[in-house]
């Protein structure tokens, strides 16, 4: 699995084994993203406030692995409920869901 440098490439990515490639597109950068792939095979979720186009069947674990280099110190919520780390792999994302991925930052 390749960890991308997000600062250099916020457009497309892949995770998982070869032959099981999952492409995500940031719609803010590519308005035609929803046209990619066969109709009905793709879903759009909101990731940290931004729409993201995903292959249908992607799990929360896949999305998080794709978005951050390390899952240390992060926590995820889907549609306003915390999803424990141990269950990320079991959560298959559905059309329209809101995913929030948080971490600790400097704060009083």
């Amino acid at each position, binding site marked *: 699995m390749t960890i991308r440098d997000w600062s250099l490439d916020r457009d497309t990515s892949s995770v998982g084994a070869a032959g099981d490639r999952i492409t995500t597109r940031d719609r803010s950068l590519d308005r035609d993203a929803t046209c990619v792939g066969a109709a009905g095979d793709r879903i759009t979720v909101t990731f940290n406030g931004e729409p993201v186009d995903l292959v249908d069947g992607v799990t929360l674990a896949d999305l998080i692995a794709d978005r951050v280099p390390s899952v240390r110190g*992060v926590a995820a919520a889907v549609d306003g409920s915390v999803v*424990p780390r141990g269950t990320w792999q079991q959560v298959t994302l559905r059309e329209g869901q809101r995913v929030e991925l*948080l971490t600790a*930052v*400097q*704060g*009083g």
Partner: protein
Amino acid sequence: MDDPLIIAGQELASRLILGTGGAPSPQVLDAAIAASGTAMCTVAMRRIDPGTSGSVLDVLTGRGVRVLPNTAGCRTAREALLTAQLGREALETDWVKLEVVADDETLLPDPAELLDATERLVGDGFTVLVYTNDDPILARRLQQLGCAAVMPLGAPIGSGLGILNPHNVELIVAEATVPVVLDAGIGTASDAALALELGCDAVLLASAVTRAQDPAMMAAAMAAAVTAGRLAHRAGRIPRRVHAQASSPTRGMAVL
């Protein structure tokens, strides 16, 4: 002198709790933490930015200090509960600094939401250190709901105005059944010393150190102030008097 701060049964080696917000860089924060001698630092929970290099967690774990996630920015009990749950999940601690503020102008706690949030968080198994107004009755109610520490403000967050109502802080201390942490408003070392002199068990401050011209030096000043204030409180100050009272004996004066 063995005089540890104990919150929820956990001993903390310093009575200075440091907020990490406002530090210009991780290096400056690291130096301030070292100089402060603090045993616990707060962090906020925010959307991850993968482009950011270095993490506040690296600094805190490197210094071996306890991490206390807060609910800064939350306006409702519902938001605070979810943020606290995310902090617990991310940082593997059930301790939380509960903040529920009413607006951006004052950043003052919203008492109704705060009571609701405290009840929900305690019910969900959190150890709740609650940031509150300098209102003795609200502090009483929060303790009745089971908070682990009550943290009245000295003045609005980031204002550096010191302790605006020391009388209320004394009233809160007088009937407290949990540690009292003076949180917010500290501007300089004498404010922190006063908090401990009034009987507070600790102070929590961020801006006074992180936004000082020399954060590490101010952190050292705060550490000394907290120690001095605690000692003065325990030593017992003299009563205030209207008139002077000579310290030299009046007997044995020569007739000159």
